[in-house]
């Protein structure tokens, strides 16, 4: 119980620090939201002086000293009121985040789970059959693909599977004339559109799980209890899965918890390449447009979910491995 209380205290402290940083960091970026809006307009040609005044009036760019802003911000965070977005004026930040979140949660979430399960299984197999083809193929491929940058893989898939072979749509999360709903047709359409971004993330993240699992598993295989189990004549599969893998999975489980926490942040580069309307794309828009309210809400959501995931993993660890409780 004391362990749990200590962890909760730590969580609250980190949360406060994150919330505070989240307020100050965007404000340290040079240029104001109006500057960003003007810079965007200036790409189409010189901007008239009157436009600047109108944009300032419209956005209602924050006034008052920084301390008052901070206090107001803390109040808003507690009531989950993040205000109006500058970029997508006059939409509210909460509305934008809630529209983008399901796309990211489903697409990135499913891929993260698939990658973890598949990667861990392949890692177990590789360690058990180490030195054979079943080891070298996934290990080598994994090392290779996990070094690919997201956007590079994304562009390759986009080009070959999207344009040359035309097997998959190249952008968006659903067909041009579709409106999001929960009909089976729409879900099938959305799944079809999610294939390329999902495969991109799968390719680049799978290797990490394989290598992580394989390496800890090989260590575990050298332990006495594994030899003892083998000497007792247990079936190889039982030894591999019930004894070695179960003990070796701990580090991968930590990674998985953190990865799940990070899912809400989306996958900025992949979403950008495929114009996928998720949180990553929203974050990209927020940052490039100096959209403080939107940035704050997104960063807050990402930090909180990573912190909470971290907390859950910590707590789980306390039960899985009693040594950490001390």
């Amino acid at each position, binding site marked *: 119980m004391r362990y749990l209380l200590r962890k909760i205290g730590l969580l609250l402290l980190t949360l406060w620090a994150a919330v505070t940083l989240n307020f100050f960091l965007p404000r340290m*970026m*040079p*240029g*104001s*939201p109006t*500057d*960003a*809006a003007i*810079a*965007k307009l*200036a*790409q*189409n*040609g*010189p*901007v*008239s*002086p*009157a*436009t*600047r*005044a*109108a*944009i300032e*009036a*419209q956005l209602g760019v924050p006034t008052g000293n920084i301390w008052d802003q901070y206090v107001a911000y803390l109040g808003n965070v507690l009531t989950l009121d993040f205000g*109006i977005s500058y*970029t*997508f*004026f*006059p*939409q509210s930040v909460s509305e934008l985040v809630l529209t983008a979140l399901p796309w990211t949660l489903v697409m990135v979430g499913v891929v993260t789970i698939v990658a973890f399960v598949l990667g861990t299984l392949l890692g177990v197999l590789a360690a058990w059959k180490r030195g054979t083809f079943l080891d070298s193929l996934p290990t080598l491929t994994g090392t290779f693909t996990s070094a690919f940058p997201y956007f590079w893989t994304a*562009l390759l898939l*986009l*080009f070959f599977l*999207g*344009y*040359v072979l*035309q097997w998959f*749509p*190249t*952008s*968006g999360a*659903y*067909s*041009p*004339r*579709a*409106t*999001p709903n929960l009909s089976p047709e729409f879900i099938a*359409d959305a799944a079809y559109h999610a294939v390329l971004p999902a495969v991109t993330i799968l390719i680049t993240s799978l290797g990490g799980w394989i290598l992580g699992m394989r390496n800890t598993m090989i260590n575990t295989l050298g332990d006495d209890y594994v030899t003892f189990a083998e000497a007792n004549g247990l079936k190889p599969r039982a030894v591999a899965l019930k004894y070695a893998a179960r003990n070796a999975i701990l580090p991968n489980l930590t990674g998985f918890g953190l990865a799940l926490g990070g899912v809400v942040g989306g996958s900025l580069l992949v979403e*950008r*390449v495929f*114009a*996928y*309307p998720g949180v990553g*794309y929203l974050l990209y*828009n927020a940052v*490039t447009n*100096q959209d403080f309210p939107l940035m704050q809400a997104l960063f807050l959501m990402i930090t909180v979910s990573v912190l909470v995931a971290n907390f859950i993993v910590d707590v789980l660890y306390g039960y899985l491995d009693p040594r950490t409780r001390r």
Partner: protein
Amino acid sequence: MQRRRGSRWGLFGSALGVAALLATSACTVDVPTDDGNNDGGGGDGTSMLLAADNGSPTFDRNFNPYSPGKRQTSTLIYEPLFVTNTLDGTETPFLASAKEQPDPATVVFTIREDVVWTDGEEFTPEDVTFTFDLLKEFPALDTNGVWALIDSIEVDGQDVIVHLTGDNVPAAAIIQKTIIVPEHLWADVEDPTTYTNEDPVGTGPYMLGEFTPNEYTLDRNEDYWQVENVAAEELILPASNTQLDIVNNGYDWAYSFMSDVENTWVSAAEGNTFWFPPGGTIAMFPNLTMAPFDNPEFRLGLSAALDRDRIADVAEEGYVEAAGMSGLLLPNQEAWLNPDLPDGGAVSQDVDAALTHFEAAGYTMSGDQLVDSAGTAVALTLTTPNGWTDWLRGATEVQSQLAEVGITVTLNQPQPAAYQQELQNGNFQLSMGSFGGTGSIYEDFNRLLSSEFLQPVGTTTTANFQRYSDPETDALLAELRVTLDEGRQMEIAHELQTVVFEQAPVIPMFYGGLWGLFSEANFTGWPSADDPYASPATWDANPLLVLTNVEVAD
């Protein structure tokens, strides 16, 4: 004047586009979609596929024509009084049928009769005055700043009489851009600044058809007052218009910078053409409040040291011309060009002349470096926004050319918002920037040279970023603002060009292109170098000019 956002991806995209075309033996590739998304290119010929509005990445349903987050096509649903061709300033009447300036402080617009809103209500001069009152009540809507120019407005029969705050001839060109909304619907809108106007009712050639987040359509308004000039029955606007999409999906009209346009866009389909007229001047803005830029001789030295043709080629792939020192947008504004300027204002690279200018400013060559009287080598910083790749290429070329006259140039590349802030605050030595392109000689030169915008370094200004101040120039601008005499307007325009040419308050380098891509397969009569009746821009009121001029191809 290109949309530079994400140009890194753009370059990637277009490189892939070229490869895609090669890989598929240069035939048109249709991206599979489960609807008629592709009928723009090769379909029934009456619906038009446009890359005119980009989702981010999807569309918000916002047709409030005053909102910064509006759908770009709001300007096809609503109309202004007049539409100005931003290339040369030609004006076409829309909701006003005529205008008159009885004296420099008054404009009289005659409002068009027999116009109806798409809900059947009649359009009246009262709608016009209502709109102006709305802008007065909500300054956030007044993006053109008309209430800085207008004193009062009254209706007289079919006329709307605008009384200006003072003598101001060019004001009419700004006032008439105001988009008119219906009183009978907008009078009840509580806060028009946050209103999203999901079901727009306008007077324009198109009305909203089907709307989804990834694509929407506009249907022709069959009761439009000049419906006989509107050829396309339906406009289709997808949210995703990447360069790859544009090359492959058979658009009728797209606006996009396109690398290697001949081998990407033009070769993608029969009938594809392009037109890249200049839309503004890209220049180096020297900070005139500091040495050595406070000395005109030094600025003229910089100007003479540049090989502008080469810079234009490097920056914009040879799509645009080098800009001379007249301050005009050529050939658009050729009629205004001062015939006394040598070579029409063009300045070619002349290192000897540059060194003569530098010497007059007190700088001499010492070894391979330009030094001041104390022997300190000249080192300058040139600011250019991060990610605007064409400007960066231009700036890099400037860097190497100035190295040849012994000047070390360091590039400073802040993020676009920070760049904007540095430019407005005067926090730079030399900065890349753009000017001109409004279609109005007065506006172009006033924003460039008027001390009305003069602010000390550290205080934000919205024009005249280089902080130029000269009483004689101000007097010229003041006279241009009040004179109705066209001969005198021309004389003043000539004198203003001489100011730019002789004093180099900015150093124009090349023109920023307007990247218009057109297909003549289904529609003809697009704006072109031979018939520059409109710019290729897909935003503001320009599409009104284009879509009331194109015709269905035979």
